[in-house]
């Protein structure tokens, strides 16, 4: 390779790979650690072992119940945040004007306010409403945090939709609810799906606010991990991290597929 080519092409490429490595190696290192045969965080020494994955599956160790708790909360949160997100985004889209813009800014505020501040406020409020350490309480908080994500995803889908489709459908005899069901909804399915996925993930790994408003009764997965780090450094942690990694990668792939379909629909 000519020296000039090394500087112009080789060097940037090397830098790019270094950056990728910096980003991903620490994440990927959890995989061998999860397979360690020791009882502490370490790389496998005398061969790999699945014992820490087995521990995850052991109900009494508390990993499985917390996973189910998190999954349940995340599903409920995704369902509610998506329904509310659709209602808001479609309403704002159809109404137009300045006040939906104002409402949108208000709705996005959970993204702007630091979660720790929000958490402090929620503790006070939930204590008064007796929602501390309850499933309802956690789901409601997660819905608030996930709502900006669903509204943004669904709003993006709607921004590609011709407003006159509503008028067209009505001139053809469709009542407003029929317009929503037969015209608007089918056209924003990708955005709704993306929003639901984002809401699920947001709830699934939420820790800051959850730590404040839960105690013994509701133990989400992030909370369980948090507790275990404070007790001892158990390699099961690496095993759970591996599982989460796989789930996250799957979610990203799903999202990429949805976006790909969305792109194709435009052309």
């Amino acid at each position: 390779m000519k020296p000039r080519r090394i500087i112009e092409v080789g060097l940037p490429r090397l830098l790019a790979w270094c950056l990728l490595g910096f980003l991903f190696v620490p994440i990927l290192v959890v995989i061998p650690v999860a397979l360690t045969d020791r009882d502490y965080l370490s790389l496998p020494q005398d061969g790999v072992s699945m014992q820490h994955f087995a521990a995850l599956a052991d109900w009494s160790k508390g990993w499985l119940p917390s996973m189910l708790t998190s999954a349940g909360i995340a599903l409920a949160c995704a369902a509610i945040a998506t329904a509310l997100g659709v209602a808001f985004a479609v309403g704002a889209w159809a109404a137009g004007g300045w006040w939906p813009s104002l409402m949108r800014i208000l709705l996005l505020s959970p993204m702007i306010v630091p979660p720790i501040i929000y958490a402090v406020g929620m503790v006070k409020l939930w204590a008064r409403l007796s929602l501390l350490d309850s499933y309802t309480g956690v789901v409601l908080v997660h819905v608030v945090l996930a709502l900006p994500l669903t509204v943004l995803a669904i709003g993006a889908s709607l921004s590609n939709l011709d407003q006159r489709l509503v008028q067209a459908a009505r001139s053809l005899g469709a009542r407003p609810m029929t317009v929503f069901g037969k015209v608007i909804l089918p056209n924003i399915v990708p955005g709704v799906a993306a929003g639901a996925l984002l809401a699920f993930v947001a709830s699934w790994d939420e820790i800051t606010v959850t730590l404040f408003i839960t105690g013994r009764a509701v133990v989400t997965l992030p909370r369980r991990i948090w507790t275990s780090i404070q007790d001892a450094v158990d390699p099961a942690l690496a095993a759970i991290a591996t599982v989460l990694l796989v789930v996250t990668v799957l979610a990203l792939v799903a999202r990429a597929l949805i976006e790909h379909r969305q792109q194709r629909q435009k052309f």
Partner: protein
Amino acid sequence: MALLVIDDLAKTYDKVTALTGINLSVEAGEFVTLLGPSGSGKTTLLMSLAGFTTPSKGTIRLDGKDITHVDPEDRNFGFVFQGYALFPHLTVANNIAFSLRVRKWEKARIATRVSEMLSLVGLDNLAERKPRELSGGQQQRVAIARALAFGPRILLLDEPLSALDRMLRETMQKELKRLHRETGVTFVYVTHDQEEAIAMSDRIAVFNHGRIVEIGPPRDLYKKPSTRFVAGFLGENNFLSGHRADDDATKVEAFGTRFGFPLAKGRERPGDSLTVWVRPEDIRIGQATGDEIGFRATVVENAFVGALERILLRTATGEQMVATLRSEAAVAAVPGQIIDCRIDPSAIGVLPNEASGS
């Protein structure tokens, strides 16, 4: 009784008046065009007819029944949008079937109707395509078929041809005329393109500043406009300043000549200034004979524009006017030459100068 009667309709947005004092009646089976520059109120009126805009004042009656505040879905009016607004998630056939499904027609009847509509607009082989797979002209046809499928009382069209290129636009004009003839549906058509309006309409309502300036068949509006606005908006026109002859109330003096013209009674005093208009195609070259109006003018420019020559003349009063002539008639029009021109008196128009001077 007229099918559709619009009575003293007005629409104000905050403090802006979009429409005011609109009176218009449309007969069943008519092709009426709302023509005007952008912002003249024609689209606001169409939106009011469709029920997408609520008028601030006045009534719209269909068969004598007040429909001013009826929901769009209960009006049974077809609507063809400027950008077609086809449902992107549905095939051509399902786009056309939409209004029929909403009306809960039986499956077999829907299928029959959809194939009827497809062949009406000549898209039989594209039934299963999605709108994004069609050309602009094809999408247009789908939009029209969709709006006609349920047998609307009136078809409202909002600048449906503006997105198409010139060639296609002319084809679609003929196509729309054919559909109008074959279906017998009443068309209310909005456009800012005067050629389109002239070519297609039974009657044209010319809009300006939220009002209807004139209504009439295209020929009448073109030949005998009663306002300066219509004289200038429909077709090409030359406007020249003139005045009443001092010595004769039936004579007008303009562009260096003098001719008889019955003036609107009582309005004109000796010397009053007037606007004289004459269409480019009505100016001929040669000595005036009989009762023709003759005048002399200098040829400024002679441009070949295809079928016709376009000649720019300067009159004795220093005003410019355009004449369009067939090439063989234009050989005498050499730039720099002073030539004799003639105009048939019936082709000339005289209008009082409007106070606003628009």
